[in-house]
Protein backbone atom coordinates (compact mmCIF):
# COMPACT_ATOMS: atom_id res chain seq x y z
CA UNK A 1 0.00 0.00 0.00
CA UNK A 2 3.01 2.25 0.41
CA UNK A 3 3.43 4.97 -2.17
CA UNK A 4 6.95 5.94 -3.13
CA UNK A 5 8.25 8.88 -1.18
CA UNK A 6 7.81 12.38 -2.59
CA UNK A 7 11.14 14.22 -2.37
CA UNK A 8 11.86 17.75 -3.50
CA UNK A 9 14.78 20.14 -3.10
CA UNK A 10 13.72 23.66 -4.00
CA UNK A 11 14.35 27.37 -3.42
CA UNK A 12 10.66 28.20 -3.16
CA UNK A 13 8.52 28.19 -0.04
CA UNK A 14 6.36 25.11 0.41
CA UNK A 15 2.75 24.69 1.51
CA UNK A 16 2.69 22.07 4.27
CA UNK A 17 -1.11 21.79 4.24
CA UNK A 18 -1.21 21.21 0.49
CA UNK A 19 1.52 18.59 0.79
CA UNK A 20 -0.44 16.83 3.54
CA UNK A 21 -3.63 16.93 1.46
CA UNK A 22 -1.75 15.42 -1.48
CA UNK A 23 -0.27 12.75 0.77
CA UNK A 24 -3.51 11.54 2.34
CA UNK A 25 -5.76 12.40 -0.62
CA UNK A 26 -8.97 10.39 -0.59
CA UNK A 27 -7.44 7.58 1.46
CA UNK A 28 -9.36 6.19 4.40
CA UNK A 29 -6.68 3.86 5.78
CA UNK A 30 -4.45 6.59 7.22
CA UNK A 31 -4.83 6.89 11.00
CA UNK A 32 -1.99 9.28 11.77
CA UNK A 33 -0.17 12.07 9.96
CA UNK A 34 2.89 13.68 11.51
CA UNK A 35 4.15 16.93 10.02
CA UNK A 36 7.51 18.34 11.00
CA UNK A 37 8.45 21.84 9.89
CA UNK A 38 11.92 23.17 10.61
CA UNK A 39 12.06 26.97 10.56
CA UNK A 40 14.72 29.64 10.42
CA UNK A 41 15.12 31.37 13.81
CA UNK A 42 16.43 34.89 14.08
CA UNK A 43 18.69 33.95 17.02
CA UNK A 44 17.41 36.76 19.20
CA UNK A 45 17.33 39.31 16.38
CA UNK A 46 20.96 38.65 15.43
CA UNK A 47 20.23 36.88 12.16
CA UNK A 48 19.19 38.60 8.95
CA UNK A 49 18.97 35.43 6.88
CA UNK A 50 20.48 32.03 6.24
CA UNK A 51 22.09 31.13 2.93
CA UNK A 52 21.58 27.42 2.52
CA UNK A 53 24.10 25.82 0.16
CA UNK A 54 23.48 22.32 -1.15
CA UNK A 55 25.00 19.67 -3.39
CA UNK A 56 22.55 19.42 -6.30
CA UNK A 57 21.89 15.84 -7.28
CA UNK A 58 23.42 14.37 -4.14
CA UNK A 59 20.90 16.19 -1.92
CA UNK A 60 17.99 14.46 -3.66
CA UNK A 61 19.85 11.13 -3.77
CA UNK A 62 20.79 11.19 -0.10
CA UNK A 63 17.30 12.20 1.03
CA UNK A 64 16.02 9.36 -1.15
CA UNK A 65 18.30 6.86 0.59
CA UNK A 66 17.16 8.01 4.03
CA UNK A 67 13.53 7.87 2.85
CA UNK A 68 13.99 4.31 1.56
CA UNK A 69 15.42 3.32 4.93
CA UNK A 70 12.39 4.80 6.71
CA UNK A 71 9.98 3.05 4.32
CA UNK A 72 11.76 -0.24 5.02
CA UNK A 73 11.66 0.19 8.80
CA UNK A 74 8.15 1.54 9.39
CA UNK A 75 4.79 0.66 7.78
CA UNK A 76 4.27 4.06 6.19
CA UNK A 77 1.36 4.80 3.89
CA UNK A 78 2.95 7.99 2.63
CA UNK A 79 6.10 10.07 3.00
CA UNK A 80 6.93 13.56 1.77
CA UNK A 81 10.20 15.42 2.28
CA UNK A 82 10.83 18.95 0.99
CA UNK A 83 14.13 20.72 1.72
CA UNK A 84 14.76 24.31 0.68
CA UNK A 85 18.04 25.89 -0.35
CA UNK A 86 19.15 29.44 -1.11
CA UNK A 87 18.36 32.51 1.01
CA UNK A 88 15.94 31.88 3.89
CA UNK A 89 14.62 34.59 6.22
CA UNK A 90 13.79 34.20 9.92
CA UNK A 91 10.32 32.73 10.34
CA UNK A 92 10.46 30.95 6.99
CA UNK A 93 10.36 27.17 6.79
CA UNK A 94 13.50 25.24 5.80
CA UNK A 95 12.43 21.63 5.79
CA UNK A 96 9.19 19.64 5.75
CA UNK A 97 8.83 15.99 6.71
CA UNK A 98 5.39 14.39 6.45
CA UNK A 99 4.71 10.81 7.46
CA UNK A 100 1.41 8.93 7.23
CA UNK A 101 0.66 5.58 8.80
CA UNK A 102 -2.21 3.54 10.21
CA UNK A 103 -0.96 4.15 13.74
CA UNK A 104 0.73 7.04 15.44
CA UNK A 105 3.89 5.34 16.73
CA UNK A 106 5.19 4.57 13.23
CA UNK A 107 4.41 8.07 11.96
CA UNK A 108 6.17 9.74 14.92
CA UNK A 109 9.21 7.48 14.90
CA UNK A 110 9.75 7.70 11.16
CA UNK A 111 9.52 11.50 11.21
CA UNK A 112 12.07 11.74 14.03
CA UNK A 113 14.38 9.25 12.33
CA UNK A 114 14.19 11.20 9.08
CA UNK A 115 14.96 14.53 10.75
CA UNK A 116 17.89 13.05 12.69
CA UNK A 117 19.38 11.65 9.49
CA UNK A 118 18.68 14.68 7.34
CA UNK A 119 20.47 16.89 9.88
CA UNK A 120 23.68 14.87 9.71
CA UNK A 121 23.63 13.24 6.27
CA UNK A 122 21.85 15.49 3.77
CA UNK A 123 24.41 17.68 1.93
CA UNK A 124 23.23 21.11 3.01
CA UNK A 125 25.28 23.80 4.74
CA UNK A 126 23.87 26.83 6.53
CA UNK A 127 25.67 30.16 6.42
CA UNK A 128 24.44 32.94 8.68
CA UNK A 129 24.11 36.50 7.43
CA UNK A 130 23.90 38.82 10.42
CA UNK A 131 21.35 41.57 10.87
CA UNK A 132 24.04 44.30 10.75
CA UNK A 133 25.04 43.17 7.27
CA UNK A 134 28.20 41.35 8.30
CA UNK A 135 28.71 37.77 7.21
CA UNK A 136 28.04 35.51 10.15
CA UNK A 137 29.97 32.50 8.97
CA UNK A 138 29.07 28.86 8.59
CA UNK A 139 26.92 27.14 11.14
CA UNK A 140 28.88 24.38 12.86
CA UNK A 141 27.57 20.84 13.02
CA UNK A 142 26.39 19.93 16.50
CA UNK A 143 27.63 16.89 18.31
CA UNK A 144 24.12 16.36 19.63
CA UNK A 145 22.97 15.88 16.05
CA UNK A 146 25.55 13.14 15.52
CA UNK A 147 24.64 11.64 18.89
CA UNK A 148 20.97 11.59 17.90
CA UNK A 149 21.79 8.96 15.28
CA UNK A 150 22.91 6.40 17.83
CA UNK A 151 19.35 5.73 18.94
CA UNK A 152 18.23 4.34 15.59
Amino acid at each position, binding site marked *: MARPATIRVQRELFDAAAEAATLSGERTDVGAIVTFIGLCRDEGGRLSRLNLE*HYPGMAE*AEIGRVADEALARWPLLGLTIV*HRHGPIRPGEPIVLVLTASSHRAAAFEAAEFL*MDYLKSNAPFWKKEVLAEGFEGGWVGAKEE*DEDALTRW
Partner: protein
Amino acid sequence: MKVEEEEEEVKALYFAWVRERIGKAEEELAPPPDIATVGDMIAWLKTRGEEYAYAFENSRSIRAAIDRTHVKHDSPISGAREIAFFPPMTGG
Protein backbone atom coordinates in the same frame (compact mmCIF):
# COMPACT_ATOMS: atom_id res chain seq x y z
CA MET B 1 49.34 6.67 -22.53
CA LYS B 2 47.30 9.80 -23.11
CA VAL B 3 44.03 7.88 -23.19
CA GLU B 4 44.65 6.17 -19.84
CA GLU B 5 45.59 9.47 -18.22
CA GLU B 6 42.37 10.99 -19.45
CA GLU B 7 40.40 8.09 -17.96
CA GLU B 8 41.88 8.83 -14.55
CA GLU B 9 40.53 12.36 -14.59
CA VAL B 10 38.05 13.03 -11.85
CA LYS B 11 35.80 15.99 -11.13
CA ALA B 12 36.41 17.47 -7.68
CA LEU B 13 33.60 19.44 -6.03
CA TYR B 14 33.96 21.70 -2.99
CA PHE B 15 31.19 23.00 -0.76
CA ALA B 16 30.67 25.56 2.02
CA TRP B 17 33.90 26.76 3.65
CA VAL B 18 35.96 24.19 1.77
CA ARG B 19 34.78 25.88 -1.44
CA GLU B 20 35.39 29.36 -0.02
CA ARG B 21 38.91 28.57 1.15
CA ILE B 22 39.95 26.92 -2.12
CA GLY B 23 38.26 29.69 -4.07
CA LYS B 24 36.48 27.48 -6.54
CA ALA B 25 33.44 25.21 -6.58
CA GLU B 26 34.82 22.51 -8.87
CA GLU B 27 37.71 21.46 -11.05
CA GLU B 28 38.93 18.55 -13.15
CA LEU B 29 41.88 16.76 -11.56
CA ALA B 30 44.20 13.92 -12.56
CA PRO B 31 45.63 12.55 -9.32
CA PRO B 32 48.87 10.55 -9.63
CA PRO B 33 48.46 6.75 -9.84
CA ASP B 34 49.58 6.21 -6.24
CA ILE B 35 46.57 8.16 -4.90
CA ALA B 36 44.37 5.22 -3.94
CA THR B 37 41.96 6.48 -1.26
CA VAL B 38 39.99 9.57 -0.31
CA GLY B 39 42.54 10.19 2.43
CA ASP B 40 45.36 10.00 -0.15
CA MET B 41 43.47 12.47 -2.30
CA ILE B 42 43.12 14.95 0.57
CA ALA B 43 46.84 14.66 1.39
CA TRP B 44 47.67 15.25 -2.28
CA LEU B 45 45.28 18.20 -2.54
CA LYS B 46 46.98 19.85 0.47
CA THR B 47 50.21 19.99 -1.57
CA ARG B 48 48.56 21.94 -4.41
CA GLY B 49 48.80 25.34 -2.75
CA GLU B 50 48.15 27.46 0.31
CA GLU B 51 44.43 27.66 -0.33
CA TYR B 52 44.17 23.85 -0.38
CA ALA B 53 46.37 23.51 2.70
CA TYR B 54 44.03 25.95 4.47
CA ALA B 55 40.86 24.18 3.31
CA PHE B 56 42.12 20.78 4.44
CA GLU B 57 44.16 21.87 7.47
CA ASN B 58 41.93 19.88 9.82
CA SER B 59 41.46 17.02 7.43
CA ARG B 60 39.61 14.77 9.86
CA SER B 61 36.70 17.21 9.87
CA ILE B 62 36.36 16.96 6.08
CA ARG B 63 33.59 14.73 4.75
CA ALA B 64 33.68 13.24 1.27
CA ALA B 65 31.31 11.74 -1.26
CA ILE B 66 32.11 9.68 -4.35
CA ASP B 67 29.56 9.89 -7.11
CA ARG B 68 27.05 11.42 -4.69
CA THR B 69 27.36 8.79 -1.96
CA HIS B 70 29.02 9.41 1.41
CA VAL B 71 32.38 7.64 1.76
CA LYS B 72 35.01 7.36 4.48
CA HIS B 73 38.58 8.52 4.13
CA ASP B 74 39.85 4.97 3.58
CA SER B 75 37.49 4.38 0.64
CA PRO B 76 39.17 3.70 -2.73
CA ILE B 77 38.71 6.35 -5.39
CA SER B 78 39.31 4.14 -8.40
CA GLY B 79 36.51 4.50 -10.91
CA ALA B 80 35.19 7.68 -9.31
CA ARG B 81 33.83 10.28 -11.72
CA GLU B 82 32.99 12.88 -9.07
CA ILE B 83 34.56 13.36 -5.64
CA ALA B 84 33.14 16.00 -3.33
CA PHE B 85 34.75 17.47 -0.23
CA PHE B 86 32.78 19.41 2.39
CA PRO B 87 32.41 20.21 6.10
CA PRO B 88 30.00 18.32 8.35
CA MET B 89 26.47 18.95 7.10
CA THR B 90 24.07 21.36 8.76
CA GLY B 91 20.81 20.89 6.89
CA GLY B 92 17.40 20.03 8.28
